[in-house]
């Protein structure tokens, strides 16, 4: 009986992983700008999702949890890196054809946003969640979501002089 339950959990998680991973990776990549780092962050976030799958699957928007974990892990990673020399592939010079860097004024502005504003933009505009759901996921009032979005969008709009602001270099 227990084995069957675990198999069902694995099937559910596999479906979740297959259906959400690409979108989550692209959203994280827009936020961090480095493909290798984004791959690691997303893998770590899904691993944690699987470890806590019973809790995560019950959430209103499980993929928002994955994206938030990935971005929070990135913040932790950077904090740690400021104090120490944490070195891995992210710090290793890679051949140019293996590096995908997502750049552009808009995305640079996105990465400069305060963490909470960036979270709101990510959930509201990239994950297309409504204000109420975003508020519940972040544990803040809907009005606060609106205020963060307003401030963030003003900064991002200033980084879009035209609609040709992004550049994907590979």
């Amino acid at each position, binding site marked *: 009986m227990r084995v069957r339950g675990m198999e069902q959990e694995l099937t559910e998680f596999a479906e979740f992983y297959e259906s959400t991973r690409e979108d989550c*990776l692209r959203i994280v990549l827009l936020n961090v700008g480095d*493909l290798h780092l984004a791959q690691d962050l*997303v893998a770590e976030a899904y691993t944690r999702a699987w*470890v806590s799958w019973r809790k995560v699957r019950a959430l209103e928007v499980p993929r928002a949890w994955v994206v938030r974990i990935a971005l929070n892990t990135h913040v932790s990673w950077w904090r740690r890196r400021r104090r120490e020399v944490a*070195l*891995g592939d*992210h710090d290793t010079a890679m051949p140019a054809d293996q590096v995908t860097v997502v750049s552009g004024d808009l995305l640079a502005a996105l990465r400069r946003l305060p963490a909470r504003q960036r979270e709101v933009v990510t959930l509201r505009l990239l994950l297309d969640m409504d204000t109420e759901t975003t508020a519940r996921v972040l544990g803040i009032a809907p009005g606060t979501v609106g205020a963060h979005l307003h401030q963030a*969008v003003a900064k991002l709009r200033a980084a879009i002089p035209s609609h040709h602001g*992004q550049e994907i270099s590979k």
Partner: protein
Amino acid sequence: MNDSDTVDVVRDSLTTAKDSLAGVHVNTPLDAIVRNGRARRRRHRLTGLTGAMAITAGMALAVTALASSGHPASQSGHAASHPVTARLAAWTVAKQANGDIKITIRELSDPSGLQSTLRADGVPANVSSSTQLDPSCQPYPMTQALFTSIYQMGVGSGNTVLVIHPSALPGGAGVQIGASVDGRAGDGSPHQVAGNQTVHQPVHQVGARADNGVLRVGLVYASQQCTGS
């Protein structure tokens, strides 16, 4: 342009940027995620079990110490207790039932002894009293995911606890542990040059020890000279 229009412009721009990444794909197979997650669940369960056992053992030791030290609580009517002194080990290595190696480091005063112990437990290891890479070793490419699958660090009672999962070591790789007692983490400058690539020493600082030292762990290519195998 009102607020709603501005939001739409930004949303469209971000969506366009995201859509332009259609050629980017996740490279981690589901099996790897599930395998790592299961290993982590097992470690969590083991940690809980170990903690419970440690509490039980601690209580038993406390009772024994009270009985043997002439503590007033255990020998009512007697005078003050005799002092009990014990020399704590600088480090201890415990091989877990699942093959994991748990190292508790209070003071890294005998790196060669730790190295021998780890090698005797089947872990290709290079341990030094410096955070700089041993010249006889070559750094093994590391990723954050690989790092977290091999190493787990914690702090308990002022000691650094490092758990190594040897089963997660890639073939041909060995562990590298270095310690600096002066608390300096190093300058982070590139240490080696391979071809046209500058390659940093693949080490991670895992925590300041009780004596304000810095402990770092990383991966190296296993070799007789570097890791003993």
